């Protein structure tokens, strides 16, 4: 491109001025902006040793190279767990083919009822990227502690049904297993898709 050409120079100046104006309007700078909470350097890297919903032993290395979303819940949870997983499923739909670069790891806080076959049927209902993981105490307690989340199981009623409390956080790790972002049950599918797209792009 010739800068000696006055028309081209004017065009470049106008383009630069427009860019600066647009940047001012959108408030964006050269930093990456995130819709979700940035937890880089705050939350421990991905590390675990668990059994997946096919009975296979898996570790963080199993999912290296993929964006991992880690969530603690239980299948008998009627509202907040499936609501969160449905939002993640909708976010993956927005990513199209890039969704295959993402794995959603659902760690059950109720390993007694959440057998691998039940976890498999449950996670499959949300999509092929969803994987159920389990372990027993005390390994589960240790894993929860690593991510500073708590959970508790309620007292069984006359029918043996019980509820649990658990964290609403979804921890998002990059392909190297570094904790980057945190979503919650109230996060929108659009915000999650936007940020995961940036992570896939190497942000």
């Amino acid at each position, binding site marked *: 491109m010739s800068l000696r050409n006055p028309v081209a120079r004017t065009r470049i100046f106008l383009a630069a001025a427009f860019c600066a104006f647009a940047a001012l309007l959108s408030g964006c700078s050269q930093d990456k902006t995130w819709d979700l909470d940035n937890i880089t350097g705050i939350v421990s890297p991905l590390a675990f040793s668990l059994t997946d919903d096919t009975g296979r032993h898996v570790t963080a290395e199993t999912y290296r190279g993929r964006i991992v979303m880690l969530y603690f819940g239980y299948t008998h949870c*009627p*509202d907040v767990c*499936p609501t969160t997983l449905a939002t993640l*499923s909708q976010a993956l739909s927005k990513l199209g083919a890039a969704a295959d670069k993402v794995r959603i790891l659902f760690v059950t806080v109720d390993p007694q009822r959440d057998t691998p076959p039940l976890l498999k049927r449950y996670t499959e209902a949300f999509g092929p990227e969803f994987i159920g993981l389990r372990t027993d105490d005390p390994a589960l307690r240790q894993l929860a502690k690593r991510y500073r989340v708590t959970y508790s199981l309620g007292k069984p009623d006359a029918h043996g049904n019980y509820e649990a*409390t658990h964290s609403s956080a979804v921890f998002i790790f990059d392909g190297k297993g570094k904790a980057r972002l945190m979503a919650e049950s109230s996060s929108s599918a659009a915000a999650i898709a936007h940020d995961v797209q940036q992570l896939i792009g190497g942000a």
Partner: protein
Amino acid sequence: MLLKDVSRKPLLWLAAALCMAFAGLAQAAGSPASVEHARIRWLPGDLPLAGYFDLTNTGPRPLTLTGASSTVFGDVMMHRTVHRGGETGMVPVHDLQVRPGQTLHFTPDGYHLMLMGRTRTLAKGDAVPIRLTFSGGRSMDVMFAVRGADMQ
């Protein structure tokens, strides 16, 4: 049998059509309320399900929702999801008052009907009857649409 009978009697047929039209609006006689977006999220096996809807009080007096029941579930409870210090759980809900003109939302991550103990298998696309009960002995039958796990 029923169809055969009504087809022979135009008046009955008309009455049936009118009833169906009213049922579509989910506006039962004696219950000055309307329900929209009644839906259930399907999950596999016999896992507890959540039911959601929007209930509008179309009458002149306050309305109190006291509970729900269904022939398709052994147990129906009203719950609310609560968040406390990063932890989430559910609490039972008993009486919910709706003022005239107001809409009560049973919505994901909030109020929900907790549906337990399926009496038959359910699949996406099914319609499930649930009876909402109000103080004063009134009730209203509503058809809930079964959606997929991803709510699509």
